[in-house]
């Protein structure tokens, strides 16, 4: 076998559905799962004489995303019509942006497994309207559901900067977290809020000569898993194809493939990507958008610390594990809550444990956000302090947290009511320890003799003290007394 090395090269096109209440160019509600064709009006149905009016919020959301992707935001942007005939596209053109997108030339940092980050270039991000859905049922006809027609989509195009399925997945996951953090998309994969189209080929070096395989675009992937697997599959397939046929990248041999989720393989859709003529031209029904500095500044003021940056800060500043920092920054409300609790004086590691181990368990059960628990960051900070200064045990803290959610009352009051305040009074505890030592001479002997039963005997004595105090003794104080009494 000749000397052969190869590198996967992947660029991504991502469609992200923005979470505006109404559609991109009309007042219809954006709603998933409504009765077919019940969220439509003359505008999104493309009725004769109807005219689009831009949803300002969608535009602002898109600009926020563009800013978060470190893009240049031009002060002038316009709308274009992209023409093609398809039954789910009632006007037979899509309102999109062609040569003057609302953002361009940015980048996104993605986390790598090594703990490092990698910068992926963003070519552009622009706004467009979604199409409807063709429903193919039995019989020699299809039906069209236009509820989704006109939903605002942000199309993001990356540079071909990714070199593995894992990197592609990392970008997708990071982007999901980013748009959720910004509050511009729910990015719910189940509802098709994010759709991916990777462009994949290989750079192969064989015996010192470099080859590039034909670019393949995989259409319409809507899960991280399918995205990652399709890239990996395609890399292997292209390598095999190259070894078999020697076919290399050339004009007009870009092909389109689909992903078969069951067979876990890509399947050919279109052999030669004909240069599609979409006949783009400026939409005369819409006026160009001209940003003012005040408007842009106002949009900028809505940005927040971005999730990856926040995650890295938590690790560095608070010495949290990368995993915990990731959990806290998975969504904005949790991260904001955590930040507020720290501001209120909570000890970071303790607050983190309370949130990740108890808070998020409850929100998961209730399928809600941390804010819906109606507890204040201050009260969680207080609870963390109570653990920190041994007023309560770490295990009691979980019970108190749950009680806080149920009752909305303060942790110190709940600790009293639930009898979870630890006994730390040394005199009181000493007499209990004395009593235990007197009652358990055998165990005392095991400890003092220092044999292999010592550890077990210590645990037993501690247990006895806990039993007598109904679990309220401060274990730290008890160990100290035990050490003093029996070494």
């Amino acid at each position, binding site marked *: 076998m000749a000397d052969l090395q190869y590198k996967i090269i992947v660029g991504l096109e991502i469609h992200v559905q923005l979470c505006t209440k109404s559609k991109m160019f009309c007042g219809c509600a954006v709603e998933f799962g409504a009765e077919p064709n019940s969220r439509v009006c003359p505008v999104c149905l493309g009725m004769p004489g109807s*005219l689009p009016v831009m949803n300002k919020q969608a535009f602002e959301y898109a600009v926020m995303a563009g800013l978060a992707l470190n893009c240049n935001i031009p002060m002038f942007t316009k709308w274009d019509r992209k023409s093609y005939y398809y039954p789910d596209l009632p006007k037979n053109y899509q309102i999109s942006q062609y040569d003057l997108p609302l953002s361009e030339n940015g980048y996104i940092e993605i986390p790598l497994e090594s703990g490092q980050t990698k910068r992926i270039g963003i070519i552009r991000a622009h706004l467009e309207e979604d199409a409807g859905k063709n429903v193919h049922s039995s019989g020699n006809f*299809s039906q*069209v559901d236009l509820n989704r027609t006109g939903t605002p989509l942000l199309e993001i195009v990356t540079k071909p900067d990714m070199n593995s399925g894992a990197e592609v997945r990392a970008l997708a996951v990071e982007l999901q977290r980013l748009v959720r953090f910004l509050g511009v998309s729910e990015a719910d994969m189940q509802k098709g809020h994010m759709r991916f189209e990777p462009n994949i080929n290989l750079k192969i070096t064989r015996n010192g000569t470099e080859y590039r395989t034909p670019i393949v675009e995989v259409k319409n992937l809507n899960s991280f898993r399918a995205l990652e697997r399709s890239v990996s599959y395609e890399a292997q397939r292209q390598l095999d194809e190259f070894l078999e046929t020697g076919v290399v990248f050339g004009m007009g041999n870009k092909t389109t493939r689909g992903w078969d989720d069951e067979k876990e393989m890509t399947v050919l859709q279109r052999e030669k990507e004909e240069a599609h003529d979409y006949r783009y031209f400026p939409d005369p029904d*819409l006026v160009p958008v001209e940003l003012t500095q005040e408007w842009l500044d106002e949009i900028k003021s809505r940005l927040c610390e971005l999730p990856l940056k926040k995650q890295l800060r938590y690790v560095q500043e608070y010495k949290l594990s990368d995993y915990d920092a990731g959990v806290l920054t998975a969504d904005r409300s949790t991260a904001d809550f955590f930040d507020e609790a720290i501001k209120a004086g909570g000890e970071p590691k303790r607050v983190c444990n309370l949130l990740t181990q108890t808070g998020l368990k409850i929100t998961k059960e209730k399928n809600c956000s941390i804010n819906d628990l109606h507890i204040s960051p201050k009260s969680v900070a207080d609870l963390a302090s109570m653990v920190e200064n041994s007023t309560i045990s770490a295990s009691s803290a979980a019970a108190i947290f749950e009680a806080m959610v149920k009752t909305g009352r303060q942790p110190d009051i709940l600790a009293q009511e639930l009898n979870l305040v630890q006994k730390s009074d040394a005199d009181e505890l000493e007499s209990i320890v004395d009593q235990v030592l007197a009652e358990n001479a055998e165990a005392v002997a095991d400890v003092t003799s220092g044999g292999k039963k010592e550890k077990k005997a210590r645990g037993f004595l501690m247990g006895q003290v806990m039993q007598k105090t109904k679990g309220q003794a401060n274990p730290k104080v008890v160990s100290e007394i035990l050490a003093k009494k029996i070494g």
Partner: protein
Amino acid sequence: MKNLTAKKLRDQIASGQIKSLDAVRNIFERIEKYEPVIGAYISTFKEKALERASQVDKKISAGEPVGQLAGVPVAVKDNMCTTFGATTCASKILQNFHAPYNATVVEKLLAADAVIIGKTNMDEFAMGSSTENSGLKQTVNPWDTSRVPGGSSGGATASVAAGMCFAALGSDTGGSIRQPASFCGVVGLKPTYGRVSRYGLVAYGSSLDQIGPVTQTVEDAALMLNVIAGHDSSDSTSVSEAIAPVCDYLTKLNEPVDKLKIAVVPQFNAGADQQVQNALNEAIKVYKNLGAEIIEIEMPHLDYAIAAYYVIATAEASSNLARYDGVHYGHRTKDPQNYIEVYTKSRAEAFGQEVKRRIMLGTYALSSGYYDAYYLKALKVRNLIRGDFTNAFEKCDCVMMPVAPTTAFKIGEKVNDPLQMYLSDIYTIAANLAGIPGISIPCGFDDNELPVGLQILSPAFTEDKLLRIAGMYEKHTNWYEKKPPIAGYK
């Protein structure tokens, strides 16, 4: 009653001298008598109109306030959406299309207590200059029924000329209000682009289309503009009133125009028939006698207006008309073999020849490899034409020119020669490209007793002044009082 203007009728209805019900009955008597000859209407709403008229009458007898068009029978071109009747655009593809909403202008007419009596014939999708391209019926010119009424708002102008309504709304993409107004001897106003909402106007060339009034007098045009002008949040291209306030065009009408300066473009006008030129010169003399100063200017880019227009308008049309595909509404072919056939056959069966021609022209102009040479170039020409007007209006208040190179031509004369037909728009197109307002008012007759129109063009959003300039002429001439003999006028 038939000699009343819309304004006078409205005042007499509002003061209780005339019942709207009688006015509407009278109009329908005339429609029943003359419509079989003229063919101005695609649909009429007699029952609904009578019912509405009596509602307005009730309001008046109850002393309630009524709108500016209280009880006045008006018509709208059949490319404006109405929830009543069909909205066909005179096309087989929309022959049975019932819009689920009213165009903004229709809502405004109704809010002004107008009585909409019917929807008028037109060239299919407003593509044409003679109304011969209607896919549904033929309209003839009331002055000579062997001739065309002009187009594309030929039904509206014929209807006003024949006294089958008191006023109408037309639409003007390249002259479609002004040219048929001149052919039919009525007043036609194309407002500034953005002055009147296009919401509910079935698009032909979106960057050029504008709705405007077709009336007997300049005063009626002012009245109609009062009702329909203004910003509409449903139309992004309608201009905000902070930028261009709407005024009371009727009240303004009587303000004198001081030191009126009129420009003419002799080189450009030389292309018109001699009799048309004569009428224009006579009209300018009238202004001169009224104290206006006449200057001669050059507008070097007007010669390219037709070429630019037929690229821009058809490009936009090719996209605007893509939606008529048989999938969601409108004509669908029988027994298609697949969805592609739903498109190709439905469109092939139901679009007329001229519409197909323009769709193909526009598709070609937007195709990759041709875009720069055609569409982009046409946009550049458009800018140059705008510049010509900007320069002109630095020197004058308005530009006067013919409306069309000829008076009404014979039915069938130009149908087989599209280029010749396109040339009949030569004087009107520039206003659409520049987005400025223009008006056509009757200014005489040729040897065949066919009306000739005078076109006046003024800067964007100066409709008040434009109407005053037109009104000056009307006050000192009596052309508007002449009615076509065919329709029972003597």
